[in-house]
């Protein structure tokens, strides 16, 4: 698989590693966490719900790469799929575990899409996220754990993402469908 994502600029200032505390944070079912990035994945907009749940101030996130809120237990294969899908101009739905500035984590059901200017040119990406149902998270977590375990067996990030992407593709194939059908089978049975 091709890593089509351009390299984001290094994080501003001392990009400290936040240690996950295991504390789970949620938000209201009628709220949307919204962010926008430039084509490289650098944050250009974050709404008030984003800032409140992640625990960052606007000035802390603007101009930062979106992996600012990456949780270490999220498999690389999911983000690889995200960028591959976006590169094809397609939308993606994914369950994502995010890391807040204080080490708390919060699961979201993210919808990510490319943004186009009036002339049709790609100007960046957009994501809005909903509060997922706990049962949906319970269903997706074993798959992510499997992918993560696979990644940890490889010494380099490159080898890790290749191996777990292969495992993800195999899993999807075994279930006889596409990733889209897999995620929608969870959404349709667990979300309302």
């Amino acid at each position, binding site marked *: 698989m091709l890593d089509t994502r351009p390299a984001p600029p290094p994080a501003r200032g001392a990009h400290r590693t936040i240690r996950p505390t295991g504390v789970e944070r949620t938000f209201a079912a*009628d709220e949307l966490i*919204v962010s*926008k990035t430039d084509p490289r994945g650098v944050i250009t907009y974050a*709404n008030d719900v984003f800032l409140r749940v992640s625990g960052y101030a606007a000035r802390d996130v603007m101009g930062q790469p979106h992996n600012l809120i990456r949780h270490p237990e999220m498999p690389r294969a999911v983000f690889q799929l995200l960028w591959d899908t976006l590169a094809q101009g397609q939308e993606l739905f994914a369950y994502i575990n995010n890391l807040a500035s204080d080490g708390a984590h919060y699961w979201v059901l993210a*919808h990510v899409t490319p943004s186009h200017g009036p002339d049709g040119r790609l*100007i960046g990406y957009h994501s809005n996220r*909903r509060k997922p149902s706990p049962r949906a998270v319970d269903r997706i977590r074993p798959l992510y754990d499997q992918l993560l375990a696979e990644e940890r067996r490889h010494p380099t990030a490159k080898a890790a993402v290749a191996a777990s992407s292969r495992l993800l593709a195999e899993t999807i194939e075994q279930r006889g469908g596409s990733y889209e059908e897999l995620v*929608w089978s969870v*959404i349709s049975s667990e979300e*309302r």
Partner: protein
Amino acid sequence: MGIRGTRASSRTDAEELELYRAFVRSLTDVCDAAARGDLEARSHLDPAIEAVPELRTLHDAANRMLDVADAFVRESSAALTSAAEGRFHRRLLERGLLGAYRSSATAINSARAAMQETAGRVIEAQTSRLRMADEFESVVLAMSEQVATASTEMSASASGLGTAAAAASTEVGTAQQTIASLTQSSAEIREIIAMIDAVAAQTRLLALNATIEAARAGEAGKGFAVVASEVKDLADQTGRATERVTAQVEQIRQAADAVASGMGTVGTTVGEMNALVDGITAAVDGSSSLSPGADDTTGLSQMAEKLRSEATGFLAEMRR
């Protein structure tokens, strides 16, 4: 909290007013952009505005308004595109959408469900049409196969029949000739017998006269009388023999007549049969097989072939 909040205390009223005005101007630009359909437009904070709670609240509210419109437009168009492409599992998520957005999402989802149902029916109809085409094809192919086989067999037996009929009519002709000559022979035999009969009668008369003359001659004519009697017996025997022959010849003549009329019937039947065979040949192979050049009547085998090709064309249409 008013303009004269604690954090704003370092600012003059004029500065404060200018801050509000600047924010109103920038928010107006954002609203104008959004009104033109630019849903990327958002209000952006600068630290001075962030410090004024009312402005911060307005900023968040304006952006939330844009966020939900943006999300709705992105997700609803993707949902409809997916449905149009037959990927019906892609619903529009109602969570996070409120009021009119939610009712619109509900409406879109029910339209999607209706589309899915229609698509299901279309697929079902298509499937049954294909199944019908398959059945139709196997029936037509079997039928045209049978017709072709039958017409080949019929054509072969018609030509066999034609040969047999020709042989039969030749044989009937020969038999009729034989009977005619037999009839003629009978007539000739009858004439000869009549002649023999006349000779025998004459002989009997002569024998009678000889007997009378012999009696008149007395002892000297005794031997002659014996001869005359022998001659009379001979004439009588001849008469009886010719009677028997006449009867037999008559029997033969009657038999020959019966055979002749029978042969006549056979001849007519064979003639009719020939016409029938021609008819069958024309029906099977087409009229051109009888009169080359006139191919206006299609033969059974050509018809079977034509039926097969028409059916194949029809099936191709049906399977589209």
